[in-house]
Protein backbone atom coordinates (compact mmCIF):
# COMPACT_ATOMS: atom_id res chain seq x y z
CA UNK A 1 0.00 0.00 0.00
CA UNK A 2 2.69 2.37 1.08
CA UNK A 3 4.86 1.41 -1.88
CA UNK A 4 1.99 1.92 -4.28
CA UNK A 5 1.28 5.40 -2.90
CA UNK A 6 4.90 6.39 -3.29
CA UNK A 7 4.90 5.09 -6.84
CA UNK A 8 1.73 6.99 -7.67
CA UNK A 9 3.15 10.13 -6.13
CA UNK A 10 6.30 9.81 -8.17
CA UNK A 11 4.40 9.29 -11.40
CA UNK A 12 2.20 12.26 -10.54
CA UNK A 13 5.20 14.45 -9.83
CA UNK A 14 6.79 13.41 -13.12
CA UNK A 15 3.67 14.21 -15.07
CA UNK A 16 3.22 17.59 -13.40
CA UNK A 17 6.87 18.40 -14.02
CA UNK A 18 6.53 17.37 -17.65
CA UNK A 19 3.50 19.59 -18.13
CA UNK A 20 5.35 22.50 -16.52
CA UNK A 21 8.25 22.03 -18.89
CA UNK A 22 5.99 21.97 -21.92
CA UNK A 23 4.47 25.20 -20.61
CA UNK A 24 7.91 26.76 -20.17
CA UNK A 25 8.92 25.64 -23.65
CA UNK A 26 5.79 27.21 -25.15
CA UNK A 27 6.44 30.49 -23.35
CA UNK A 28 10.05 30.35 -24.41
CA UNK A 29 9.00 29.75 -28.03
CA UNK A 30 6.88 32.91 -27.90
CA UNK A 31 9.81 34.87 -26.48
CA UNK A 32 12.12 33.60 -29.20
CA UNK A 33 9.65 34.68 -31.88
CA UNK A 34 9.17 38.02 -30.16
CA UNK A 35 12.91 38.67 -30.03
CA UNK A 36 13.63 37.47 -33.55
CA UNK A 37 13.92 40.96 -34.99
CA UNK A 38 17.68 41.13 -34.59
CA UNK A 39 18.18 37.78 -36.31
CA UNK A 40 16.79 39.41 -39.44
CA UNK A 41 18.10 42.98 -39.16
CA UNK A 42 21.59 41.77 -38.27
CA UNK A 43 21.56 38.91 -40.70
CA UNK A 44 25.24 38.06 -40.21
CA UNK A 45 24.33 36.65 -36.77
CA UNK A 46 21.98 34.15 -38.39
CA UNK A 47 24.29 33.42 -41.30
CA UNK A 48 27.00 32.43 -38.86
CA UNK A 49 24.63 29.90 -37.30
CA UNK A 50 23.55 28.62 -40.71
CA UNK A 51 27.21 27.97 -41.33
CA UNK A 52 27.71 26.09 -38.05
CA UNK A 53 24.45 24.11 -38.19
CA UNK A 54 23.99 23.74 -41.91
CA UNK A 55 27.25 23.90 -43.80
CA UNK A 56 29.16 21.83 -41.26
CA UNK A 57 26.44 19.13 -41.39
CA UNK A 58 26.73 18.84 -45.18
CA UNK A 59 29.21 15.98 -45.21
CA UNK A 60 27.21 13.63 -43.01
CA UNK A 61 24.00 14.51 -44.88
CA UNK A 62 25.54 13.91 -48.32
CA UNK A 63 27.15 10.61 -47.34
CA UNK A 64 24.08 9.31 -45.50
CA UNK A 65 21.77 10.34 -48.33
CA UNK A 66 23.93 8.50 -50.83
CA UNK A 67 23.94 5.29 -48.78
CA UNK A 68 20.23 5.39 -48.02
CA UNK A 69 19.55 5.83 -51.75
CA UNK A 70 21.86 2.95 -52.64
CA UNK A 71 20.15 0.64 -50.16
CA UNK A 72 16.77 1.70 -51.53
CA UNK A 73 18.06 0.86 -55.00
CA UNK A 74 19.13 -2.65 -53.95
CA UNK A 75 16.08 -3.49 -51.88
CA UNK A 76 13.64 -1.87 -54.28
CA UNK A 77 15.06 -3.69 -57.29
CA UNK A 78 15.03 -7.01 -55.46
CA UNK A 79 11.32 -6.67 -54.67
CA UNK A 80 10.13 -4.99 -57.88
CA UNK A 81 11.78 -7.41 -60.28
CA UNK A 82 9.72 -10.26 -58.78
CA UNK A 83 6.66 -8.58 -60.24
CA UNK A 84 8.44 -7.55 -63.40
CA UNK A 85 8.21 -3.90 -62.42
CA UNK A 86 11.90 -3.10 -62.14
CA UNK A 87 11.42 0.01 -64.35
CA UNK A 88 9.42 1.55 -61.50
CA UNK A 89 12.53 1.62 -59.34
CA UNK A 90 12.92 5.37 -59.88
CA UNK A 91 9.38 5.97 -58.62
CA UNK A 92 9.96 3.90 -55.51
CA UNK A 93 13.24 5.60 -54.65
CA UNK A 94 11.97 9.11 -55.28
CA UNK A 95 8.68 8.71 -53.44
CA UNK A 96 10.23 7.06 -50.37
CA UNK A 97 12.77 9.83 -50.11
CA UNK A 98 10.55 12.80 -50.84
CA UNK A 99 7.70 11.72 -48.59
CA UNK A 100 9.37 9.99 -45.68
CA UNK A 101 13.02 9.11 -45.56
CA UNK A 102 14.37 12.51 -46.53
CA UNK A 103 12.65 14.55 -43.82
CA UNK A 104 12.83 11.85 -41.14
CA UNK A 105 16.38 10.53 -41.57
CA UNK A 106 17.91 13.93 -42.34
CA UNK A 107 15.98 15.34 -39.36
CA UNK A 108 17.36 12.70 -37.03
CA UNK A 109 20.89 13.26 -38.33
CA UNK A 110 20.50 17.02 -38.00
CA UNK A 111 19.29 16.69 -34.41
CA UNK A 112 22.27 14.62 -33.37
CA UNK A 113 24.84 16.58 -35.35
CA UNK A 114 23.70 20.20 -35.04
CA UNK A 115 20.99 20.20 -32.37
CA UNK A 116 23.27 18.65 -29.78
CA UNK A 117 26.00 21.17 -30.61
CA UNK A 118 23.61 24.09 -30.15
CA UNK A 119 22.44 22.73 -26.79
CA UNK A 120 26.02 22.23 -25.64
CA UNK A 121 27.05 25.73 -26.69
CA UNK A 122 24.14 27.53 -25.05
CA UNK A 123 24.39 25.31 -21.97
CA UNK A 124 28.07 26.08 -21.55
CA UNK A 125 27.46 29.79 -22.03
CA UNK A 126 24.91 29.56 -19.24
CA UNK A 127 27.24 27.55 -17.00
CA UNK A 128 30.06 30.06 -17.38
CA UNK A 129 27.68 33.00 -16.70
CA UNK A 130 28.10 34.39 -20.21
CA UNK A 131 24.35 34.71 -20.61
CA UNK A 132 24.06 36.56 -17.30
CA UNK A 133 26.93 38.85 -18.26
CA UNK A 134 25.21 39.63 -21.55
CA UNK A 135 21.95 40.33 -19.74
CA UNK A 136 23.84 42.68 -17.38
CA UNK A 137 25.11 44.55 -20.45
CA UNK A 138 21.48 45.16 -21.42
CA UNK A 139 21.74 42.77 -24.35
CA UNK A 140 19.00 40.15 -24.37
CA UNK A 141 20.54 36.65 -24.58
CA UNK A 142 17.35 35.44 -26.25
CA UNK A 143 17.69 38.00 -29.03
CA UNK A 144 21.46 37.77 -29.38
CA UNK A 145 22.24 34.08 -28.70
CA UNK A 146 19.07 31.99 -28.85
CA UNK A 147 17.06 33.44 -31.75
CA UNK A 148 19.90 33.35 -34.34
CA UNK A 149 20.60 29.72 -33.49
CA UNK A 150 16.92 28.89 -33.73
CA UNK A 151 16.57 30.51 -37.15
CA UNK A 152 19.87 29.08 -38.30
CA UNK A 153 18.44 25.61 -37.67
CA UNK A 154 15.03 26.39 -39.15
CA UNK A 155 16.64 27.67 -42.36
CA UNK A 156 19.34 25.04 -42.79
CA UNK A 157 17.41 21.89 -42.07
CA UNK A 158 14.93 21.97 -44.97
CA UNK A 159 17.84 22.69 -47.31
CA UNK A 160 19.73 19.72 -45.90
CA UNK A 161 16.63 17.55 -46.36
CA UNK A 162 16.49 18.56 -50.01
CA UNK A 163 20.17 17.74 -50.47
CA UNK A 164 19.69 14.44 -48.66
CA UNK A 165 16.83 13.44 -50.97
CA UNK A 166 18.70 14.50 -54.09
CA UNK A 167 21.72 12.46 -53.01
CA UNK A 168 19.38 9.54 -52.29
CA UNK A 169 17.92 9.64 -55.79
CA UNK A 170 21.45 9.78 -57.16
CA UNK A 171 22.38 6.73 -55.03
CA UNK A 172 19.32 4.83 -56.26
CA UNK A 173 20.22 5.66 -59.85
CA UNK A 174 23.83 4.60 -59.28
CA UNK A 175 22.80 1.15 -58.03
CA UNK A 176 19.71 0.61 -60.17
CA UNK A 177 20.84 1.97 -63.52
CA UNK A 178 24.64 1.90 -63.46
CA UNK A 179 25.31 -1.33 -61.57
CA UNK A 180 22.18 -3.46 -62.05
CA UNK A 181 21.24 -2.17 -65.48
CA UNK A 182 17.63 -1.00 -65.13
CA UNK A 183 16.58 0.93 -68.23
CA UNK A 184 17.66 4.53 -67.71
CA UNK A 185 14.86 6.11 -69.75
CA UNK A 186 12.19 4.25 -67.83
CA UNK A 187 13.85 5.04 -64.50
CA UNK A 188 13.64 8.81 -65.03
CA UNK A 189 10.44 9.08 -67.08
CA UNK A 190 8.39 6.97 -64.69
CA UNK A 191 9.77 8.98 -61.80
CA UNK A 192 8.78 12.25 -63.50
CA UNK A 193 5.33 10.94 -64.32
CA UNK A 194 4.57 9.52 -60.87
CA UNK A 195 5.99 12.11 -58.53
CA UNK A 196 3.60 15.01 -58.05
CA UNK A 197 5.04 18.34 -57.06
CA UNK A 198 2.27 19.45 -54.74
CA UNK A 199 1.29 16.08 -53.32
CA UNK A 200 4.76 14.58 -52.80
CA UNK A 201 7.45 17.23 -52.90
CA UNK A 202 5.57 20.06 -51.22
CA UNK A 203 4.24 17.82 -48.48
CA UNK A 204 7.75 16.51 -47.87
CA UNK A 205 9.01 20.09 -47.64
CA UNK A 206 6.26 20.99 -45.18
CA UNK A 207 7.34 18.04 -43.05
CA UNK A 208 10.96 19.17 -43.12
CA UNK A 209 10.01 22.70 -42.03
CA UNK A 210 7.89 21.39 -39.15
CA UNK A 211 10.69 19.07 -38.03
CA UNK A 212 13.18 21.91 -38.33
CA UNK A 213 11.13 24.12 -36.03
CA UNK A 214 10.71 21.27 -33.52
CA UNK A 215 14.37 20.24 -33.47
CA UNK A 216 15.68 23.82 -33.31
CA UNK A 217 13.27 24.76 -30.54
CA UNK A 218 14.18 21.68 -28.51
CA UNK A 219 17.90 22.33 -28.98
CA UNK A 220 17.84 25.98 -27.88
CA UNK A 221 15.36 25.33 -25.07
CA UNK A 222 17.30 22.46 -23.54
CA UNK A 223 20.49 24.54 -23.64
CA UNK A 224 18.85 27.62 -22.14
CA UNK A 225 17.00 25.64 -19.49
CA UNK A 226 19.83 23.33 -18.43
CA UNK A 227 21.17 23.06 -14.89
CA UNK A 228 24.34 25.18 -15.03
CA UNK A 229 26.84 22.41 -14.27
CA UNK A 230 28.90 20.00 -16.38
CA UNK A 231 26.46 17.22 -15.56
CA UNK A 232 23.47 19.44 -16.32
CA UNK A 233 24.85 20.27 -19.77
CA UNK A 234 25.50 16.63 -20.59
CA UNK A 235 21.96 15.71 -19.55
CA UNK A 236 20.57 18.53 -21.64
CA UNK A 237 22.42 17.24 -24.71
CA UNK A 238 21.02 13.75 -24.18
CA UNK A 239 17.54 15.18 -23.79
CA UNK A 240 17.91 17.17 -27.01
CA UNK A 241 18.78 14.09 -29.04
CA UNK A 242 16.11 11.88 -27.45
CA UNK A 243 13.29 14.43 -27.49
CA UNK A 244 14.11 15.50 -31.04
CA UNK A 245 13.95 11.91 -32.26
CA UNK A 246 10.65 11.30 -30.52
CA UNK A 247 9.24 14.60 -31.74
CA UNK A 248 10.24 13.89 -35.34
CA UNK A 249 8.74 10.41 -35.34
CA UNK A 250 5.53 11.45 -33.63
CA UNK A 251 5.05 14.55 -35.79
CA UNK A 252 5.80 12.44 -38.86
CA UNK A 253 2.96 10.10 -38.01
CA UNK A 254 0.54 12.96 -37.43
CA UNK A 255 1.53 14.81 -40.62
CA UNK A 256 1.52 11.68 -42.73
CA UNK A 257 -1.98 10.78 -41.58
CA UNK A 258 -3.20 14.20 -42.66
CA UNK A 259 -1.25 14.44 -45.91
CA UNK A 260 -1.32 11.02 -47.52
CA UNK A 261 -4.75 9.53 -47.11
CA UNK A 262 -4.79 8.20 -50.66
Amino acid at each position, binding site marked *: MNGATTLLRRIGARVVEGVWRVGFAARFFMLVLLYSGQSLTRIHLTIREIYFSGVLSLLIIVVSGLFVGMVLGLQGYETLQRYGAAESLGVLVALSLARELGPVVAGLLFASRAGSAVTAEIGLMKTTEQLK*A*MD*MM*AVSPIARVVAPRFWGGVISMPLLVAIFSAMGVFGGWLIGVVFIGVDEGAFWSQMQAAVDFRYDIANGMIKSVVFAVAVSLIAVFEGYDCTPTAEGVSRAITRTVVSSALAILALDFVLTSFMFRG
Partner: protein
Amino acid sequence: MGADVDNAFVSLEGVRFSYGDREILKGVDLSVRRGQVVAIMGGSGCGKTTLLRLIGGQLRASSGRIEVAGHDLSRLGRKGLYALRRRMGMLFQFGALFTDMSVFDNVAFPLREHTDLPAETIRDLVLMKLNAVGLRGAERLQPAELSGGMARRVALARAVALDPMLIMYDEPFAGLDPISLGVIGQLIRRLNDALGASSIMVTHDVHESLEIVDYIYFVADGRIVAQGTPDEIRASKDPFVHQFVYAEADGPVPFHYPAAPMGEHLLGRSTA
Protein backbone atom coordinates in the same frame (compact mmCIF):
# COMPACT_ATOMS: atom_id res chain seq x y z
CA MET B 1 26.05 56.86 9.79
CA GLY B 2 28.88 57.73 7.45
CA ALA B 3 26.89 57.51 4.24
CA ASP B 4 24.74 60.42 3.16
CA VAL B 5 21.44 58.83 2.15
CA ASP B 6 19.90 61.85 0.42
CA ASN B 7 22.68 62.21 -2.05
CA ALA B 8 22.94 58.49 -2.75
CA PHE B 9 23.38 57.06 -6.23
CA VAL B 10 22.69 53.57 -4.95
CA SER B 11 20.73 52.95 -1.81
CA LEU B 12 19.43 49.82 -0.12
CA GLU B 13 16.97 49.94 2.74
CA GLY B 14 16.05 46.86 4.75
CA VAL B 15 16.76 44.54 1.85
CA ARG B 16 15.98 40.87 2.44
CA PHE B 17 16.60 38.00 0.08
CA SER B 18 16.27 34.22 0.26
CA TYR B 19 17.27 31.32 -1.94
CA GLY B 20 14.38 28.95 -1.29
CA ASP B 21 14.06 28.61 2.49
CA ARG B 22 17.52 29.92 3.24
CA GLU B 23 17.52 33.61 4.01
CA ILE B 24 20.79 35.03 2.73
CA LEU B 25 20.23 38.73 3.42
CA LYS B 26 18.27 39.70 6.52
CA GLY B 27 17.83 43.41 6.17
CA VAL B 28 20.71 45.28 4.56
CA ASP B 29 21.04 49.07 4.56
CA LEU B 30 23.73 50.54 2.41
CA SER B 31 24.32 53.58 0.28
CA VAL B 32 26.84 54.77 -2.27
CA ARG B 33 27.19 58.39 -3.27
CA ARG B 34 28.18 59.70 -6.66
CA GLY B 35 31.96 59.68 -6.98
CA GLN B 36 32.48 57.19 -4.17
CA VAL B 37 34.29 53.89 -4.29
CA VAL B 38 32.76 51.57 -1.73
CA ALA B 39 34.04 48.18 -0.66
CA ILE B 40 31.89 45.33 0.59
CA MET B 41 33.69 42.73 2.64
CA GLY B 42 32.66 39.62 4.43
CA GLY B 43 33.27 35.93 4.77
CA SER B 44 32.97 33.59 1.82
CA GLY B 45 29.33 32.71 1.11
CA CYS B 46 27.88 35.57 3.17
CA GLY B 47 25.99 36.97 0.20
CA LYS B 48 28.24 39.59 -1.39
CA THR B 49 27.74 38.39 -4.94
CA THR B 50 24.03 38.14 -4.19
CA LEU B 51 24.09 41.77 -3.09
CA LEU B 52 25.63 42.89 -6.40
CA ARG B 53 23.08 40.82 -8.33
CA LEU B 54 20.30 42.59 -6.44
CA ILE B 55 21.71 46.00 -7.28
CA GLY B 56 22.07 44.95 -10.93
CA GLY B 57 18.42 43.86 -10.96
CA GLN B 58 19.23 40.23 -11.76
CA LEU B 59 17.59 39.12 -8.54
CA ARG B 60 14.56 40.69 -6.87
CA ALA B 61 14.59 41.42 -3.15
CA SER B 62 11.85 39.70 -1.19
CA SER B 63 11.37 42.90 0.80
CA GLY B 64 13.03 46.26 1.26
CA ARG B 65 13.86 48.92 -1.26
CA ILE B 66 16.70 49.21 -3.76
CA GLU B 67 17.24 52.46 -5.59
CA VAL B 68 19.74 53.11 -8.34
CA ALA B 69 20.07 56.56 -9.92
CA GLY B 70 16.71 57.51 -8.45
CA HIS B 71 14.87 54.47 -9.84
CA ASP B 72 13.14 52.01 -7.54
CA LEU B 73 14.25 48.68 -9.03
CA SER B 74 11.09 46.84 -8.00
CA ARG B 75 9.01 49.20 -10.16
CA LEU B 76 11.23 49.02 -13.19
CA GLY B 77 10.06 46.91 -16.13
CA ARG B 78 12.41 45.13 -18.46
CA LYS B 79 12.87 48.15 -20.71
CA GLY B 80 13.62 50.44 -17.80
CA LEU B 81 16.02 47.94 -16.30
CA TYR B 82 17.88 47.58 -19.60
CA ALA B 83 18.08 51.35 -19.97
CA LEU B 84 19.60 51.51 -16.50
CA ARG B 85 22.00 48.63 -17.16
CA ARG B 86 23.45 50.42 -20.16
CA ARG B 87 24.93 52.79 -17.62
CA MET B 88 26.16 50.00 -15.34
CA GLY B 89 29.26 47.90 -15.70
CA MET B 90 29.73 44.64 -13.86
CA LEU B 91 32.84 42.58 -13.48
CA PHE B 92 31.73 39.01 -12.81
CA GLN B 93 33.48 36.93 -10.19
CA PHE B 94 34.70 34.47 -12.82
CA GLY B 95 35.11 36.91 -15.70
CA ALA B 96 32.35 35.46 -17.89
CA LEU B 97 34.14 36.38 -21.12
CA PHE B 98 32.38 35.27 -24.31
CA THR B 99 34.34 32.19 -25.29
CA ASP B 100 33.41 32.39 -28.97
CA MET B 101 34.99 35.84 -29.40
CA SER B 102 38.53 37.15 -29.25
CA VAL B 103 39.71 39.49 -26.49
CA PHE B 104 39.18 42.45 -28.82
CA ASP B 105 35.63 41.43 -29.75
CA ASN B 106 34.77 40.85 -26.11
CA VAL B 107 35.67 44.40 -25.19
CA ALA B 108 34.05 45.74 -28.36
CA PHE B 109 30.82 43.83 -27.68
CA PRO B 110 28.99 46.44 -25.58
CA LEU B 111 30.14 49.23 -27.92
CA ARG B 112 28.89 47.41 -30.99
CA GLU B 113 25.59 46.47 -29.35
CA HIS B 114 24.74 49.88 -27.96
CA THR B 115 26.39 52.48 -30.18
CA ASP B 116 26.57 53.25 -33.87
CA LEU B 117 30.20 54.29 -33.71
CA PRO B 118 32.31 53.63 -36.80
CA ALA B 119 34.66 50.67 -36.69
CA GLU B 120 37.80 52.83 -36.34
CA THR B 121 36.43 54.65 -33.32
CA ILE B 122 35.46 51.37 -31.70
CA ARG B 123 38.93 50.07 -32.41
CA ASP B 124 40.54 53.08 -30.74
CA LEU B 125 38.25 52.83 -27.71
CA VAL B 126 38.87 49.11 -27.29
CA LEU B 127 42.62 49.50 -27.53
CA MET B 128 42.49 52.31 -24.96
CA LYS B 129 40.55 50.13 -22.52
CA LEU B 130 42.84 47.18 -23.10
CA ASN B 131 45.87 49.38 -22.66
CA ALA B 132 44.53 50.53 -19.30
CA VAL B 133 44.49 46.94 -18.05
CA GLY B 134 47.87 46.22 -19.64
CA LEU B 135 46.61 43.80 -22.26
CA ARG B 136 46.70 45.77 -25.50
CA GLY B 137 49.12 43.19 -26.87
CA ALA B 138 46.63 40.39 -26.21
CA GLU B 139 43.83 41.73 -28.42
CA ARG B 140 43.98 38.81 -30.84
CA LEU B 141 44.02 36.05 -28.24
CA GLN B 142 41.01 33.86 -27.55
CA PRO B 143 39.70 33.68 -23.94
CA ALA B 144 40.91 30.06 -23.70
CA GLU B 145 44.48 31.32 -24.20
CA LEU B 146 44.36 33.67 -21.21
CA SER B 147 45.35 32.98 -17.64
CA GLY B 148 42.75 33.49 -14.92
CA GLY B 149 44.12 36.90 -13.94
CA MET B 150 44.37 38.06 -17.56
CA ALA B 151 40.78 36.97 -18.23
CA ARG B 152 39.57 39.04 -15.29
CA ARG B 153 41.47 42.08 -16.54
CA VAL B 154 39.86 41.72 -19.97
CA ALA B 155 36.50 41.37 -18.26
CA LEU B 156 37.28 44.57 -16.38
CA ALA B 157 38.03 46.37 -19.63
CA ARG B 158 34.74 45.10 -21.04
CA ALA B 159 32.81 46.19 -17.93
CA VAL B 160 33.94 49.79 -18.37
CA ALA B 161 33.77 49.90 -22.16
CA LEU B 162 30.67 52.11 -22.19
CA ASP B 163 31.98 54.48 -19.50
CA PRO B 164 29.29 53.48 -16.99
CA MET B 165 27.90 55.59 -14.15
CA LEU B 166 27.96 52.66 -11.76
CA ILE B 167 30.67 50.02 -11.84
CA MET B 168 30.41 46.86 -9.80
CA TYR B 169 33.43 44.65 -9.31
CA ASP B 170 33.06 41.16 -7.91
CA GLU B 171 36.48 40.35 -6.46
CA PRO B 172 38.61 42.32 -8.95
CA PHE B 173 41.82 41.29 -7.19
CA ALA B 174 41.35 37.52 -7.10
CA GLY B 175 44.10 35.74 -8.99
CA LEU B 176 46.28 38.81 -9.55
CA ASP B 177 49.98 39.04 -8.71
CA PRO B 178 50.98 41.84 -6.30
CA ILE B 179 52.06 44.14 -9.13
CA SER B 180 48.87 43.84 -11.19
CA LEU B 181 46.93 44.06 -7.96
CA GLY B 182 48.31 47.49 -7.17
CA VAL B 183 47.86 48.66 -10.76
CA ILE B 184 44.27 47.42 -10.97
CA GLY B 185 43.48 48.98 -7.61
CA GLN B 186 44.73 52.36 -8.84
CA LEU B 187 42.89 51.85 -12.11
CA ILE B 188 39.59 51.29 -10.31
CA ARG B 189 40.11 54.52 -8.39
CA ARG B 190 41.20 56.55 -11.44
CA LEU B 191 38.39 55.24 -13.62
CA ASN B 192 35.87 56.15 -10.99
CA ASP B 193 37.23 59.66 -10.64
CA ALA B 194 37.66 60.24 -14.36
CA LEU B 195 34.11 59.14 -15.16
CA GLY B 196 32.58 60.77 -12.08
CA ALA B 197 31.04 57.37 -11.51
CA SER B 198 30.28 55.33 -8.41
CA SER B 199 31.93 52.00 -7.79
CA ILE B 200 31.06 49.07 -5.59
CA MET B 201 33.77 46.55 -5.06
CA VAL B 202 33.42 43.17 -3.40
CA THR B 203 36.80 42.09 -2.16
CA HIS B 204 38.75 40.12 0.39
CA ASP B 205 41.82 42.24 0.03
CA VAL B 206 41.61 44.49 3.08
CA HIS B 207 44.89 46.31 2.71
CA GLU B 208 44.56 47.15 -0.97
CA SER B 209 41.03 48.40 -0.47
CA LEU B 210 41.91 50.50 2.55
CA GLU B 211 44.23 52.39 0.18
CA ILE B 212 41.74 53.16 -2.55
CA VAL B 213 38.17 53.18 -1.24
CA ASP B 214 36.13 55.91 0.44
CA TYR B 215 33.92 53.71 2.55
CA ILE B 216 33.73 50.09 3.66
CA TYR B 217 30.84 47.85 4.66
CA PHE B 218 31.31 44.54 6.45
CA VAL B 219 28.63 41.91 5.88
CA ALA B 220 28.03 38.94 8.17
CA ASP B 221 25.04 36.74 8.81
CA GLY B 222 22.95 38.65 6.28
CA ARG B 223 23.47 42.07 7.85
CA ILE B 224 25.87 44.99 7.75
CA VAL B 225 27.83 44.49 10.95
CA ALA B 226 30.36 47.28 10.64
CA GLN B 227 31.08 50.22 8.36
CA GLY B 228 33.29 53.25 8.13
CA THR B 229 35.91 55.17 6.22
CA PRO B 230 39.35 53.55 5.90
CA ASP B 231 40.65 55.64 8.83
CA GLU B 232 37.73 54.64 11.02
CA ILE B 233 38.24 51.00 10.06
CA ARG B 234 41.95 51.07 10.87
CA ALA B 235 41.20 52.59 14.25
CA SER B 236 38.25 50.35 14.94
CA LYS B 237 38.09 48.30 18.13
CA ASP B 238 35.20 46.24 16.74
CA PRO B 239 36.18 42.56 17.11
CA PHE B 240 34.72 41.77 13.71
CA VAL B 241 36.69 44.45 11.90
CA HIS B 242 39.80 43.56 13.86
CA GLN B 243 39.55 39.93 12.83
CA PHE B 244 39.21 40.91 9.19
CA VAL B 245 41.93 43.50 9.07
CA TYR B 246 44.42 41.29 10.89
CA ALA B 247 43.27 38.02 9.24
CA GLU B 248 42.72 36.10 12.45
CA ALA B 249 41.11 32.66 12.18
CA ASP B 250 39.24 32.96 15.46
CA GLY B 251 36.66 35.61 16.03
CA PRO B 252 33.11 36.50 15.10
CA VAL B 253 33.55 35.43 11.44
CA PRO B 254 33.18 31.65 11.25
CA PHE B 255 35.47 29.87 8.82
CA HIS B 256 33.05 26.92 8.58
CA TYR B 257 29.75 26.69 6.70
CA PRO B 258 27.13 25.85 9.38
CA ALA B 259 27.33 22.10 10.12
CA ALA B 260 26.86 19.53 12.82
CA PRO B 261 29.89 18.95 15.06
CA MET B 262 32.66 17.10 13.25
CA GLY B 263 32.46 14.03 15.52
CA GLU B 264 28.77 13.49 14.89
CA HIS B 265 29.22 14.09 11.19
CA LEU B 266 32.01 11.53 10.85
CA LEU B 267 30.00 8.96 12.79
CA GLY B 268 27.20 9.47 10.28
CA ARG B 269 24.60 10.52 12.85
CA SER B 270 23.87 13.71 11.05
CA THR B 271 23.27 14.55 7.42
CA ALA B 272 23.80 18.28 7.82
